C-alpha cells in the first residue's frame, strides 16, 4: 500500500502542499509573528525580509501574519462550504437515484438551473440581501456545490442500482433507504472523496473572488482575495502585496487539484494492477 502510494508523484505533491497549508492555517490559530490587524504606519510598504518574512502592507501590517490568518479564513470557509454542499448534494443525488420518476425530472432540472447561474453574480445578489460576510460566502459557495454533487452521485448511484447484488437486496424486500446506506453510498464514496478534494480548490478560488469583490469576510479579518484587491494600486510600488496572496491562492488551488487527481488515479480500478 505504502509503496503504491509513493509511486504517485502527483498525489504526494498534492498531499504535501495541502498538508502544509492546513498546518499553516492551524498554526495561525495559536501563533502568528505579529497581530495581523496591528497597523504600524511607520513601517508601511516594507519589502519582504526587511520587515518580517514577507514585508508589510500600506498600513504597515505584517504580511506574513495576514497570509497565515488568510489561509485559515480561506480554508475554513471553503471546507465548511464544500462539506455543506457535498452532504446536501449527495443526499439529493442518492435520493433521486432511489426514487426516479417525476422526482428525478424535477430535481435534475433544478440542478440545471443552478448550474446555469454564474456563482459570483448570484453571490453578489445574496450579498445584497444578507449583507457581505463569511456566512454569505459559505452559503453562496455551498449553493453551487449542491448540483455538482447531486449530479455526480445520481449518476454513480444509478450504476450501482443496476448491479446484481442490489437486485438481490430488492428481491429480499429491503427498503430503498437501507439499500442506499448499505450498498450505494459505500460503493460511490471514492468518487465523492475525489470530487470533494477538487471542489475544495474551486471553493478557495471562489472565496478569493468574493473577497476580492468585497463580499467575503469584512475587515479587519485578512483574506487573500481582499489583500489582492487592496494591492492593485500599489502594484508599481509594492508588487509583493499582490504577488504573495496571488501565489497563495494559486498554490492552494494547485494543491487540492493535484490531490484530487492523485486520489482519482489511486481509486481507479483500471490502474489497480
Amino acid at each position, binding site marked *: 500500500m505504502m509503496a503504491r502510494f509513493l509511486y504517485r508523484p502527483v498525489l504526494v505533491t498534492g498531499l504535501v502542499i495541502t498538508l502544509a497549508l492546513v498546518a499553516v492555517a492551524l498554526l495561525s490559530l495559536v501563533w502568528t509573528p505579529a497581530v495581523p490587524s496591528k497597523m504600524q504606519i511607520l513601517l*508601511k510598504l516594507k519589502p519582504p525580509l526587511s520587515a518580517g518574512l514577507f514585508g508589510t502592507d*500600506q*498600513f504597515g501590517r505584517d504580511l506574513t501574519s495576514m497570509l497565515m490568518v488568510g489561509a485559515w479564513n480561506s480554508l475554513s470557509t471553503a471546507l465548511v462550504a464544500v462539506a455543506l454542499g457535498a452532504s446536501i448534494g449527495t443526499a439529493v443525488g442518492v435520493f433521486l437515484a432511489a426514487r426516479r420518476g417525476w422526482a428525478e425530472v424535477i430535481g435534475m432540472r433544478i440542478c440545471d438551473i443552478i448550474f446555469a447561474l454564474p456563482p459570483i453574480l448570484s453571490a453578489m445578489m445574496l450579498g445584497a440581501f444578507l449583507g457581505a460576510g463569511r456566512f454569505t460566502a459559505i452559503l453562496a459557495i455551498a449553493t453551487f456545490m449542491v448540483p455538482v454533487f447531486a449530479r455526480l452521485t445520481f449518476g454513480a448511484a444509478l450504476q450501482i442500482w443496476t448491479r446484481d447484488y442490489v437486485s438481490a437486496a430488492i428481491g429480499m424486500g429491503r427498503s430503498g433507504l437501507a439499500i442506499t446506506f448499505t450498498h450505494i453510498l459505500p460503493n460511490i464514496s471514492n468518487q465523492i472523496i475525489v470530487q470533494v478534494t477538487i471542489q475544495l480548490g474551486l471553493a478557495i478560488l471562489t472565496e478569493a473572488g468574493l473577497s476580492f469583490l468585497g463580499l467575503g469576510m469584512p475587515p*479587519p479579518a485578512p483574506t487573500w482575495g481582499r489583500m489582492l484587491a487592496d494591492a492593485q494600486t500599489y502594484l508599481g510600488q509594492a508588487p509583493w502585496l499582490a504577488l504573495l496572496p496571488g501565489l497563495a491562492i494559486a498554490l492552494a488551488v494547485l494543491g487540492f487539484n493535484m490531490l484530487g487527481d492523485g486520489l482519482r488515479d489511486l481509486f481507479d480500478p483500471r490502474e489497480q494492477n
Partner: protein
Amino acid sequence: MLRTISMIGSASGAITRRVALGLMVTASVLAMGQSRAEAAKDNVTIGMAIEPAGLDPTVAAPVAIGQVTWQNVFEGLTTIDRQGKVVPLLAESWTISPDGLTYTFKLRDGVTFHDGEAFSSATAKFTLDRARGDQSVNPQKRYFSTIDTIETPDATTLVLKLKQPTGSLLYWLGWPSAVMVAPKTAENNKVTPVGTGPFKFVSWAKGSQVQLEKNAGYWNSQVSVKLEKASFRFIGDAQAQAAALKAGDVDAFPEFGAPELMESFKGDAKLVTVIGNTELKVVAGMNNATKPFNDKRVRQALMMAVDRATVIEGAWSGLGTAIGSHYTPNDPGYIDLTGTYAYDVEKAKALLAEAGYPNGLTFTIKAPQMAYAQRTSQVLQALFSEIGVTMNIETTEFPAKWVADVLKAANYEMTIVAHAEPMDLDIYARDPYYFNYKNPAYNAVLQKVQETSDPAEQAKLYGEAQKILADDVPSLFLFVMPKLGVWDGKLKGLWENEPIPSNVLTDVHWVE
C-alpha cells in the same frame, strides 16, 4: 541608421530598397504626426474620475456636473476665482443697501447665450425664480429661499429684495448651482447645455467623453481663450487614469484618484504633479441622536483615539491636511483646532469610562466603496481598538445606497464621506440632516454670519462656529484631501487649488 542598413543591404539590393522605402514612409508619417501634434496645441483632453449623470448644475448636486460646465459653458452673476474670492461675472457691479436687504446688480450688456439669445435682467429673474420656486430641484434651493422679490427696472438692472440679511448671497450666486440659464433652453440643459460661457457644448458620448469648443462670440473681449477644443474624458479606475496620462491619451487629470500612484509619475519627464488644496473634508459623521453617540463624551473620546497623522498616512499616503472642525485652511477665518481633542489614548479611555463605557463599546461604520473611505475606516478601526472600541465595517454603495440609507434616512451609527461643498458649516445647523446634531447656540452663530456682510465680522463668527464644532465633535474631523493634479508640463493655466470643485479652462493654454 540609413547608412547601416544600406551597408547590410549591399548583399541584397532589393531588400535594401524596400527597407529604405519603408523607412522613408515611416519618417514622413512621423513628420506628419509631429506637425499635426504641433498644430494640435489648441485642444486639451481633461480626465475626470466620475462621469456626471447630466450636464445642468442647476438641477442636480453631483460636483462632476460643475466640473465640466461651470465657468466653461455656464456662468453666474458672480463667480469664485482661483483664490476662492467672489468676483463679478455677468453682473458688472452691485450695491447693497445699508440694512443688507436690497441687492442692486448692474448686469453686463451685450452678453448672449450660445444659441444667440440675449442675456438680460429678465433671464436672470427667470433663472433665480426657477431655482427658488416650488417646482425647483436646485441642489442649493435653500440658499435662494432668502430672496423675497426680484425686480427688473430695466434690461441691465436686477434688484433682489431679501427676507433677511444674507451675508453669503454673493458667494452662493457664484456657485455652479446659481449659473444663468435661458428660458428657451433651460429644460434641455441636462443633455445639451446652453450657457453664456467661453465654451460651447458640442457632444456627449455617454460613458466616454464630453466635447466642448471655443465660443467665438464670447462676450468678454478681455479674455483671450487659447483653446479651440476641449474634451472631458471619464476614467474611473486609478490604474487606467495613470496609464492614460502616461500614454498621452489625456493631457491632464486635475483630480487624480490614487495618491499611492503619484510617485510613479516622478520619473516621467513629460508630466508634472501639482499638489494643491481642496474643500474636500473627510469626516466620520455620527448619528448624534442615538446611543452611544448622543453622549458628547463618547464622541470626544473617539476623537481623542484618532491620530490624524496616522489616518492621513495610511489612507492617503500622507498627502492631506489635518482638520479640527468642518472647515479648511482655505476658508476665511480658519483656525487650527486639531489640538482641541488631540490624540491621547489614556485620556480617551478615561473619558469613555466616565461616559459609562469602561469596557469599550461596539458599533458599525457604513463606509462607501471609495478608496479613501475604505482605508480611513480600516485605520480608524485599528485606532479605536486601542481604547477597547470595536468598530465593524459595513461597505455601502455611494452615491445611491449611501444617500438613501445615511443622508436621507439617517439609518446609521457612524459613516465616513468627504464633504465637497465649500464653506458648508451650515450643514450642522440643518434639521433634518444626517448628523442629527442639534445645538441652538451653534445655529445662532451661523444666523449672525448671515446678518452681517462685513467680512471681518463674518470671519470672527466662523471662528466661533468652528470652536463649537471642535468641542461638540458631531463628527470626527479628520483631514482635507489634497488636489492631486497630474498634467503635461507644457499645459498651463489649470487651477492648482480647488476653492470650489471645478475645471475652469478659460486660461488653459499650451506653451513650448
